[in-house]
């Protein structure tokens, strides 16, 4: 076996161009997918911490679903590309295998010989690829720390993930190379020596109407069915990832921004005790601090006089006002009864957990907010909506449980999206909340303006000051939050580019393998009068043929997934957003395909030596 390995490595050295090409291709693909996977894990961490804990758990779930979907695709993509590349490489050795069989070499010896070559290529690519991917990941982490210093994420060296990636790539590559070698070893030497025999050719293709090069490409692509299918699959995955990150990422960003705007309201100025406003809006910022026991504004001096509300409402440019009553209070998990199908009986759930939360008393019929919620609307005064984190941390199955405070019990109707106090909050009927504490009036007045006009805001501030209150420009916090969301999702852009890079490498390798396996056909075409540019155009057409077979379904799937599956109540910035994004992703796809075809294009445009006899069988 050691002799065999020696022969195998010598054989690889004798084919330096092809060997380097395969190792380079595998290495770059492994490096890029390793980087995407490791860096994606960090992004997941960031989005989980930033969104899951700050926002509602339901939102956190779909952020996690979105990023996990991407990571899963990346993982599958890496395995598919590694197996495709190794498999394609071994397919190109069919004739050599046939030759060895024809000479009488034992089947085991042939199998070991080519597996040794495959393992050498695979191991060297995996080691170098993962090393490069890890370095890229570390550079990404440095960039992350420098670009968004406020973000929180765990920063442990991902040794387990790296080990997992290496194991999967090696196993996928090993078994993928085994199959074509094993299949060829089992064939008759005459068949292996003449790979054309019994090959079928697809007659009709998607782009045939575009001209002769495209019709030729259809036949070329249609001939290597297995190799083409795997390449199409890997391209589908690459383009799906890129499309999901661009189309879906944009939708997720817009949707989350929309949720924040809906919960906070647009063009709002808040009026209240200056200390209350400071603490309240600090707790409304994604990077702010949660409330604590010091948030206590129930005294009569904190209650906003009715006259002040009337005066502000009468100002020109004020479109709406809303009075809220805020209390920071101890709360307790109320039990719920659910049917247990295993024991076929009802059982009690809930552990009577206790905690603290901001209770927001609103007038449901007049609130300026339009929260995204999962559950049912409130239709009685003794009902409540929970913020995501409160529901997640204190309840087992919140929608069948109750929230208890001050010895009162409120039925939980829904989980609401609101980033206030990191989601440790509850919304309930204002009058009910006031009754519990024996308070009449509100300690927070939200004033919605026609536009954020400084003159008008000054008038409101003057009125508030006259009554001993202050104002807070809520729009500033809203803008800051939207920027924070944008910053987190902008981190996804490098991943989209890396996914496109994977597609580029996969397709380039496919085309190069395709060219070298059919060099003779191309030389024959040249010898009967085809210009170099024609052959090069056939290669670009072949790239487009294969690339679009993977790319178009990827685009459709990612749009559908993003809108209908991964993101509830998906929002888009404008009606033109989807068409424009789809077009831009499509253009990026075509650019990637054309770039991948450049090496073969250059090869054929510069190769003047077409002595056919050299390639004669």
């Amino acid at each position: 076996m050691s002799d065999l390995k020696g022969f195998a490595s010598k054989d690889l050295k004798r084919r330096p161009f092809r060997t380097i090409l395969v190792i380079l291709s595998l290495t770059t693909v492994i490096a890029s997918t390793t980087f995407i996977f490791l860096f994606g894990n960090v992004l997941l961490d960031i989005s989980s911490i930033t969104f899951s804990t700050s926002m509602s758990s339901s939102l956190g779930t779909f952020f996690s679903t979105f990023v996990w979907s991407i990571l899963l695709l990346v993982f599958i993509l890496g395995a598919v590309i590694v197996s495709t590349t190794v498999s394609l490489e071994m397919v190109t050795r069919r004739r050599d295998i046939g030759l060895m069989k024809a000479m009488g070499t034992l089947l085991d010896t042939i199998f070991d010989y080519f597996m040794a070559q495959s393992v050498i290529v695979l191991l060297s690519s995996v080691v170098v690829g993962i090393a490069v991917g890890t370095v890229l990941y570390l550079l990404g982490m440095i960039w992350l720390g420098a670009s968004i210093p406020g973000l929180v994420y765990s920063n442990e060296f991902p040794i387990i993930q790296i080990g997992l990636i290496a194991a999967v790539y090696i196993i996928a590559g090993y078994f993928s190379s085994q199959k074509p070698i094993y299949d060829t070893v089992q064939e008759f030497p005459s068949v292996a020596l003449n790979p054309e025999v019994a090959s079928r050719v697809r007659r009709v293709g998607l782009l045939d109407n575009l001209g002769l090069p495209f019709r030729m490409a259809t036949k070329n692509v249609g001939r290597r069915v297995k190799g083409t299918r795997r390449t199409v699959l890997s391209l589908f995955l690459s383009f799906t990832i890129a499309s999901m990150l661009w189309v879906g990422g944009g939708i997720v960003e817009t949707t989350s921004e929309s949720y924040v705007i809906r919960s906070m309201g647009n063009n709002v100025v808040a009026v209240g005790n200056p200390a209350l406003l400071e603490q309240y809006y600090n707790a409304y910022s994604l990077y702010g601090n949660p409330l604590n026991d010091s948030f206590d504004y129930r005294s009569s001096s904190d209650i906003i006089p009715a006259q002040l509300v009337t005066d502000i409402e009468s100002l020109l440019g004020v479109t709406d006002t809303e009075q809220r009553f805020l209390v920071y209070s101890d709360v307790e998990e109320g039990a719920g009864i659910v049917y247990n199908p295993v024991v076929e009986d009802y059982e009690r759930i809930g552990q009577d957990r206790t905690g603290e939360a901001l209770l927001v008393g609103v007038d449901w019929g007049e609130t300026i907010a339009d929260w995204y919620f999962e559950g049912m609307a409130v239709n009685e005064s003794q009902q409540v909506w929970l913020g995501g984190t409160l529901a997640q941390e204190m309840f087992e199955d919140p929608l069948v449980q109750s929230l208890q405070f001050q010895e009162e019990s409120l039925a939980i109707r829904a989980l609401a999206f609101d980033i206030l106090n990191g989601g440790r909050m509850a919304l309930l009927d204002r009058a009910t909340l006031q009754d519990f504490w024996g308070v009449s009036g509100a300690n927070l007045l939200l004033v919605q303006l026609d536009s954020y006009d400084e003159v008008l805001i000054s008038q409101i501030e003057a009125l508030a000051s006259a009554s001993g209150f202050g104002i807070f420009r809520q729009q500033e916090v809203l803008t800051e939050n939207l920027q924070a969301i944008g910053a987190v999702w902008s981190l996804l852009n490098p991943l989209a580019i890396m996914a496109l890079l994977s597609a580029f490498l996969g397709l380039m390798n496919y085309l190069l393998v395709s060219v070298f396996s059919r060099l003779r056909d191309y030389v024959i075409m040249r010898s009967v009068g085809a210009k170099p540019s024609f052959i090069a155009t056939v290669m670009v057409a072949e790239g487009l043929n294969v690339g679009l077979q993977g790319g178009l379904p990827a685009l459709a799937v990612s749009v559908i997934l993003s809108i209908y599956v991964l993101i509830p109540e998906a929002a888009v910035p404008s009606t033109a957003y989807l068409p424009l994004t789809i077009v831009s992703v499509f253009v990026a796809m075509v650019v990637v395909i054309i770039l991948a075809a450049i090496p073969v294009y250059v090869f054929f445009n510069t190769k003047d030596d077409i002595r056919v006899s050299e390639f004669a069988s």
Partner: protein
Amino acid sequence: MMADDDYLEAADSTRDDTYDYDDVQFAVRLTDVSRVYRMGSNKIEALRNINLEIEPGQYVVVSGHSGSGKTTLLNVIGAIDVPSSGRLLVMDVPISDYDESFRATFRLTTTGFIFQSYNLVSTLTALENVMFPMQMYDKTPDEIEEVAMNLLARVKMDHRPDHLPWQLSSGEQQRVAIARAMANDPPIILADEPTANLDGESGQMIRELLSELNAEGKTVVVMTHDEGIIGHKNARRFTMENGELKSNV
């Protein structure tokens, strides 16, 4: 240099039904043509100072041992290879002075090449292989298919137009290759050992086809060991030996 379009126009003007070569003095003219290959420090002189004049409509046969330079000579005449030195005119055109793009156009319109190993494109059917050079020449699709079918009929292959090369016998592949060589109705047919891999019956059919083409006025240049071709009644016979061309007449 002549532009591609100008040449195509000129080439078209020389190709009417009667092959009137009034304007062309020599179909092929080689003056002191040499072809040297370098493989590392080794220098291989495949062609040595070849001088050859072939008039339009002649039937030229070159024989010689393997490695004597026959294929190289044919490749040079067919613009598949270029001479290292010397002057080469095909249909009075100094083809080696032009770039590969022009030479491709020249091959498409002026020479029909028949290879020893047939060299059909493996992904194309028999009909498509014959259609391919015409498609490159921008003829109308209907015309192309009709002409290609007629050519297949002429080589008695019209019963298997949709077969891929691997589904055809050696003789059938060579007949398709001849049909392809005739595709754009070129004035010159170049054949490299066209009968070497064929049985007696197939070989005879090829010999007859080459004779017919010559009888129609095409210039035919054949590199062969086949006595049947060498013995052609109108043949000008040459022998290649160590890269040198010797006349047998």
